[in-house]
């Protein structure tokens, strides 16, 4: 398992409109087709739009925010930012 698989999904989102469409139409299927494969934990976190969890797993933030920018997996930029803030809120 490597967080690279998550980062690569986020990278591809910027450059592949067809992947953005697939992540909108059938997200689990699109994520299960990823190469290299995502771990089950990464896949479930992506499906849930749990960017706080993905951040804690070591995902690259610059890449991760692209999910919010392109409004994928239940995210938009305000939701993305709020979930990152929540993950790092003290206490």
């Amino acid at each position, binding site marked *: 398992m490597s967080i690279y698989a998550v980062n690569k999904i986020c990278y591809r989102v*910027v450059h592949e409109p067809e992947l953005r469409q697939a992540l909108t139409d059938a997200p689990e299927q699109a994520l299960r087709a990823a190469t290299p494969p995502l771990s089950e934990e990464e896949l479930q976190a992506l499906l849930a739009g749990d960017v706080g969890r993905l951040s804690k797993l070591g995902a690259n933030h*610059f*890449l991760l925010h692209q999910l919010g920018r392109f409004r994928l997996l239940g995210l938009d930029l305000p939701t993305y930012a709020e979930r990152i*803030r929540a993950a*790092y809120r003290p206490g």
Partner: protein
Amino acid sequence: MAEIVGGVGVPHTPHFPGIVDRDEPLGPQLRRLYGTAARHLRELAPDVLIFFTCDHYNIFFVESVPIFSIGVAPSAPGPSDYRELPAYTVPIASDLARHIQAAAVHGDFDVGMSQEFEFDHPVTVPLHFLTPEMDVPIVPVFVNGLIPPLPSAARCHALGARIREALTGMPGRVAAVASGSFSLEVGGPRLSATSHTGIPDPQWAGRVMDLMRAGDVARLVAEASEEQLARAGNAAGELLTWIAMLGLVGHSPAAFLEAQPDFGHAFGCWLAS
């Protein structure tokens, strides 16, 4: 010998072109700041721009992440990452680019060669404001300022100086462009209360301004450690493009330098020393 005439440093915030086009409240300030840099460049009348930029995970993320690379294609389109921004085909001075890349390698700088690529917004946004006619070809120099491990500030400065040497014996007037911020976090835990970006270290951005204003590039290079850049945000390594540009242009105090403190970045103009 090629005449090195000066340089500029500007930010590349992707929503700036739209803010200006829609005449939003920040528009007049952006028009003035980019306009000042553009006027400075026009007065320098360069035949070519050495353009220092950081790829934003668009060209180099999957196959390989070069620490330095020079684009040698005849031209390249862009931006690849913001299709809603104005699209350009950017001319590249490819013979000069190949010459500089070879000279750098022969001078013990292991600079890669990029033969086919699309530019991303850190190249097209500055050119949109500086040379929108795309009538001045560029030599793109990619500096890895975003994906750790980063090159040292000293190495980036030396690369600029090496390119200056490589221009010896080449014809024409050469200016340099740097593109990027001094403190910026995109998408990470240090975002602001109201945005997906943040300015984690405004004090550092101010310190960079002070040192540039004083022309004290040696101290800037000494203080811009990888740790300091990391403290200043996950995009604060973009400062390395400014340091490389100053290595090429020389250490005279800036002819113009003005910050946008809310953004952690600045606009600067230099005459070659």
